[in-house]
């Protein structure tokens, strides 16, 4: 019984959102506002239960690890974002967070830069690696703006543009695929879970 009611509500909300495809209407606005409200309403108690209780309340009040009071107070300074006069206090937890990012720089350089560079410098042993080589070089040259893109240099950078266009096309194709997949998921729900037409 519960499943039937929940499926009916989900189907109503799905169709309300789809109704925007015809034109903007109150059903769409209602479903959109409800999504935001429910998301927040769900997240707040979950975060309270999963974050505040195990990481703040339990250590301080039950385990008496009073050192936790310092980061707890630091974190609570975020609330001053809403104050015009005391908003500057919220910068301190942000500064602390930024300092942690420094810790990840060596590992990030490895993942984002060094390994990527190494794989781009491997011997050309096939069509794929040749294409990657040509693409990398021509695109890098395209983004070198200290020389006018004219003559032979301009033709080489044009090859870079072609590589980028193919990349954007592939990316757009994947985007279309993703959006269609989302529609498929919703229609599978409407036809299967709600109407029971597919099993």
């Amino acid at each position, binding site marked *: 019984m519960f499943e039937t009611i929940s499926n009916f509500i989900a189907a109503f909300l799905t169709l309300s959102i789809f109704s925007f495809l015809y034109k903007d209407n109150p059903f769409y606005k209602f479903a959109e506002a409800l999504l935001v409200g429910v998301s927040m309403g769900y997240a707040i108690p979950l975060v309270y239960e999963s974050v505040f209780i195990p990481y703040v309340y339990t250590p301080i009040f039950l385990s008496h690890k009073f050192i936790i009071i310092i980061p707890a107070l630091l974190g609570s300074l975020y609330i001053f974002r809403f104050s015009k006069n005391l908003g500057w206090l919220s910068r301190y937890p942000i500064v602390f967070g930024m300092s942690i990012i420094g810790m990840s720089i060596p590992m990030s350089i490895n*993942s984002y830069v060094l390994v990527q560079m190494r794989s781009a410098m491997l011997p050309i042993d096939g069509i794929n690696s040749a294409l990657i080589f040509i693409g990398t070089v021509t695109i890098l040259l395209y983004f070198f703006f200290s020389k006018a893109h004219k003559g032979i240099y301009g033709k080489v950078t044009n090859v870079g543009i072609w590589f980028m266009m193919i990349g954007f096309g592939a990316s757009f194709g994947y985007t279309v695929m993703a959006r269609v997949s989302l529609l498929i998921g919703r229609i599978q729900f409407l036809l299967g879970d709600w109407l029971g037409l597919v099993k």
Partner: protein
Amino acid sequence: MNQNVINFFNKIQNIDRRYIYIVVALSIIIPLLIPFNSPTYVTKPTADIYKKVDSFAFDENKAVLLSFTHDASTMPELFPMEVAVLRHCFERNIKVFTICWLPAAAPLVDYALNTAKEDYDVQSGVDYCNFGFKPWAIQLPIMLGMGDDIAKAVETDSQGRKVENLEIMKNIKNYDDMNLVIDFAGSSSAISWITYARARFGANIAAGVTAVMVADNYPYLQTGQLMGMFRGLKGAAEYEKLVDVFAAYESEDYPNGRPYSNEIIKETNVPITGDTIPYKYKKARIGMNAQSVAHIMMIFFILLGNIGYFITRNKG
């Protein structure tokens, strides 16, 4: 050029977009209502994940971690992947852990586990363990901490039990044992795992991403930082097939599934019509039928639109 043709293309150029929506909707609804058996070709990035997961089969000293970094908005693509991997683990007696970093992902983990375990005699804390929702803010200490001691880094599971006391933790200490992390996301969040778990501890990382994010993640696949990648609904469909063909295969010679073989996967087509496979285990493959029809429809519209554009432009 015939005036009727020009008039036709003029009309097409100005057609109300809602007619296109109806045609696209029908191109999806009809294949879902009337499924057909289209071949599913398994690609290397998906097969690599399958082989890695399968290498842990019936090994008490190895485990897989599934990291859920998404909410319900990307569920149609990611959920079939998650169910397929969990099914593989349950079929082949592979220890599996789950963790999520977004509040909205917590019920999705439960949903995936409940969907997959229905058909298996598996127990929480013994065969699988859900670490539950951990806030994004402490992702970094957890990722790094798992490299030393998983039980200390995570502390409690979703049911509030001490992780160190769970039976599943026997012989599982850190990334040396939990040597595969699969991150399911509608973003490039697998990069965090690459940066911290792989760069520092050498953990194997794989990603299950929505199709939108595939292009962003390809550089990491090409460099080997990602050992495999599920690419949208297609990746899910491929893994569903792999599980059917190998992990869920039963015969006298192979009572608990058979090992991966390139030849077998190339030659085998698993029929998705009929009731032999439950719908939940072929959802992505049926979805891919609709995907194919929708893509053909869109290619047709793009060609039609372009032909019309050039004809009407020349005449104009």
